């Protein structure tokens, strides 16, 4: 059996999407390892292809989301994640992971602040692919994911910065309408290498077709049980895109 690329899922106190994210990574071909932050050392990253920052509430996110996670990570391995990226490694941050990557300065500058509604919002959103990315190659131009966050409004120092991210391809995915007040409806960002990607919605929650809220999603003929039905949800294709990038670049 071929050796699977290794994905390391960092777990902070309060990270709570690590198990389903590990499941998604395993399904597309990664081997996974969940590492509590207390056990993280620079050596932990040896031989790892992907560092995954899953969703949740690291340290409760009582101060700005992702802030404490950043401080502890830097205390543990200093600029280790930056070096990991420079050495060809991939980093994916979903929801709280996106917030942490933003705090770490691994993504274009900006902040994720409280939704304009002032509320936690758990709902499905339609999204648009705005740029090529190794994380999106197998996805169509439009797709849906569930989101669940209170602080997902992406803002930049000036509105001009956000517009620039749209133009230069940093803003790889946007919402199809204004769901939380994000500038330019930005839902996710990539860095210049394309190997660092962060996004608020949750692809790991849409791994299988039946995870969709509409039982007839991509299945207009309900009688055709099992015959030609789409098995996978859009989330599968995000993780699978990543897997193919990782394995082809090795």
């Amino acid at each position, binding site marked *: 059996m071929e050796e699977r690329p290794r994905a390391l899922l960092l777990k902070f106190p*309060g990270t*709570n999407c690590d198990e389903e994210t590990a499941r*998604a990574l395993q399904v597309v071909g990664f081997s996974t390892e969940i590492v509590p932050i207390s056990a993280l050392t620079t050596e932990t990253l040896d031989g790892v292809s992907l560092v995954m920052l899953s969703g949740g*509430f690291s340290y409760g996110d009582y101060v700005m989301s992702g802030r404490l996670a950043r401080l502890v990570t830097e205390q543990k391995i200093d600029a280790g994640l930056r070096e990991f990226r420079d050495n060809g490694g991939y980093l994916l941050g979903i929801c709280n992971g996106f917030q942490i990557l933003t705090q770490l300065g691994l993504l274009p500058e900006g902040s994720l602040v409280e939704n304009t509604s002032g509320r*936690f919002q*758990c709902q499905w959103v339609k999204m648009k692919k705005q740029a090529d990315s190794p994380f999106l190659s197998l996805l169509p131009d439009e797709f849906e994911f569930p989101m669940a966050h209170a602080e997902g409004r992406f803002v930049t120092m000036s509105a001009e910065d956000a517009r620039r991210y749209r133009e230069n391809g940093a803003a790889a995915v946007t919402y199809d309408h204004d769901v939380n007040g994000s500038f330019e409806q930005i839902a996710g960002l990539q860095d210049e290498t394309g190997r660092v990607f962060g996004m608020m919605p949750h692809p790991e929650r849409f791994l299988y077709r*039946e995870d969709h809220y509409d039982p007839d999603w991509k299945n207009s003929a*309900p009688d055709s049980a099992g015959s030609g039905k789409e098995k996978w949800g859009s989330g599968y294709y995000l993780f699978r895109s990543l897997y193919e990038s990782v394995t082809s670049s090795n």
Partner: protein
Amino acid sequence: MSETESILDQIAEAPADHYRTLKISDLDGERLLELSQFMHLSLSKEDMLAVREIYRDWNREPTDVELEVIAQTWSEHCKHRIFGADIEHETNGKKETVKSLFKTYIYDVSNRIFDRKPGFVLSAFHDNAGFIKLDEKLAICLKAETHNHPSAIEPYAGANTGIGGVVRDILGAGKGAKPIASLDVFCFGAPDTTMDNIKAEDVLHPLGIMRGVVRGVRDYGNRMGIPTVSGAIQFDNSYIYNPLVYCGTAGSIPIKYIDKEVGAGMKVIAVGGRTGRDGLHGATFSSAALDTESHESDQQAVQIGNPIEEKKAADFVLAARDADLIEFITDCGAGGYSSAAGEMLEECGGTINLDNVTLKEPGMVSWEIFISESQERMVLAVKEESMQELQRLADLYETELIVLGDADGSGILKVTHHGETVCQLDCSKLHTAPTRCLSAKWELKTKSVDAPAVDNGGKDLRALLSDFAVVSREPIIREYDHEVQGNTILKPLAGASGDAPQDASVMRISGSERLMSMSVSILPEWGKTDPYAMGTACVDECIRQMVASGADPDRLAILDNFCMGNPDAEEELGALVETVKGIAAAAEVYGAPFVSGKDSFYNYFETEEGPVSIPVTILISGMGIVEDVSHVTGSSLRREDSLIAVIGSTESDLGGSVYARQKGLANATVPGTDMDAAMGLYRSYYEAVKQGLILSAHDVSEGGLAVTLAEAAFSGKAGLEIDLSSLPTGEDVSVAAMLFGESPSRLVVEIAPENLERVAAVFGEQSFAPLGRAAGEHSNLKVTRGADVLIDEPLDELKSLWKNGLAHYY
């Protein structure tokens, strides 16, 4: 100076030491009661006399720690003494004696069902939650609790710790179950209550309570990463002073980790949060009524939640369980270490050393440490050789581990502090509280009431869809992360539009091909006039919702969570007895055993105009096995050309319905439940589901058939054309009852036209009739009866009323 005064004076003084001995052997009943009240023990005179006798037998005096331990153990909250009482009950002229409601109507009924279904229920009543078998390897469990009194006083923290507490129940079930889904059910005063309708000072407005409670559940559940998937809200003025907050959590566990046992030589350890003065007397506090003073004085009984502390402890517990390092585990809930260690050491015995407890603040005396209900603590019994690995895991997950003491096989619970023994109790004595004797009485209040003529069905339907009992809970549901863990297959809001209501929630269970359905039912309006009918209908509705979602009707289990006002009031207790009889009768016929339950008494309030009690309120929640993901069935219309049929018979009675409330039909007869017929229907329905013949199904409940049809069509797929001419009914059923009556055991189902004959064949002679069709050519809900058009309304307008009804208030 009398003996009592000297004792009270002695207690009133700051303790000279960390504990003290109290001379009670010469006190009479009145003095003992004063002592109980002074110490906030919530023990009755009879209880205190029993305590005195125990100590006379032992020929010594109790320490304050021991009295506190006994008070915790005997509190209603921990011991459920009203459900164990002897009750003289009179109903409609007939008298009977019920020896323990729990044993007669819950335990014995469930045991008979266990015998009928061997191997299905794997554990019930003795653990933190009951387990049923999911497949050969895994079991699932469910537990629900109330957190009413704390939520009345401090809604955010009360609800916060309510969900935190029930999650710990699951973590402490078996050798540690994984929390996989939560439910929450609330009863509040109406959101538009005016302040002059609140007849007491310092009582929070229902809106303040609702917002605080929802945010409390949100901030704890979301941070713990447990999807809140199921729930209900009732609004009624009887809940203004005593809101009800039910929190429930389901879990999964490998079957091999269900049985647990403490043995001599094991270490007793605790993990999680530290111990402080927060949460003193929570158990005894919730066993007494509220008044304005409670809002001032009982604040220390409400604790502060810290979900991240609990998340770390949960990560530790599940890792330790999977490494097979846990021999016994339980949560630290009401009564703190005293009840957790008491439960753990009641048979084995052992020593707890309070010097090892890490504290939030200095200067705590022995009893405070031992009974503090500080949150986020779990107590475990482990083998000594596992300690090193357990410490490693605790460090890894950054949770604090302390060694509380040892289990020693002596049968004696011994507590030491500063080198002295501050408590030494024979555990077997701790669990024998005196049996209470109560009397109860119930007279049926209902009468036959003529149904109003339906002049404008559309207007009536609009009013119902705007009623607080029916409106969408979407503003609240969206605040809960109901999809974390990635396993919520049937979501609380779904259908093609993503926002239509569903009857039950269905969760994928990691590691199994099978799924779990979860649902809740609560019908307090029915119980105001006919508590027995409320009991049967609640069980029916809970089961019907799970079955509708695709669960096997023969593999369901339910929980009973009661709330009531004053059990010493005969009428109120009588309503409770009738409710219990109702749920017991239904459980037996449906073969759905109770696997866990809880009760909350003293939900009454001394207002300026006298005491106000809540109505006897029963929450039935359930879990059921869904055999295959292809069986999962939602409640929303899926096609433009399908047929709509109804299952079950519509009866004439309008009592308890939202329609009756709106039309002012007081005391109308409440519908009964034909349970045998219903079970037949559910089995047939399941057969149709297994054959892939059901596109969608929605239960008929609040608002009746018309509301059910509208809600099904809120998916936006098509309009509906329905003719009630062939509706299966009982005798003399009015048009009002056909459209808006809430008689139980009915489902509206959507069927592909080509499958109609097969479905009809499955139901045979039972109540089943096609009523109409999905109409892709328009988007109205059109209901006729022959040539009479009863309702013809645009669905988008109906949906807007329903969807936005709560939005102004939350």
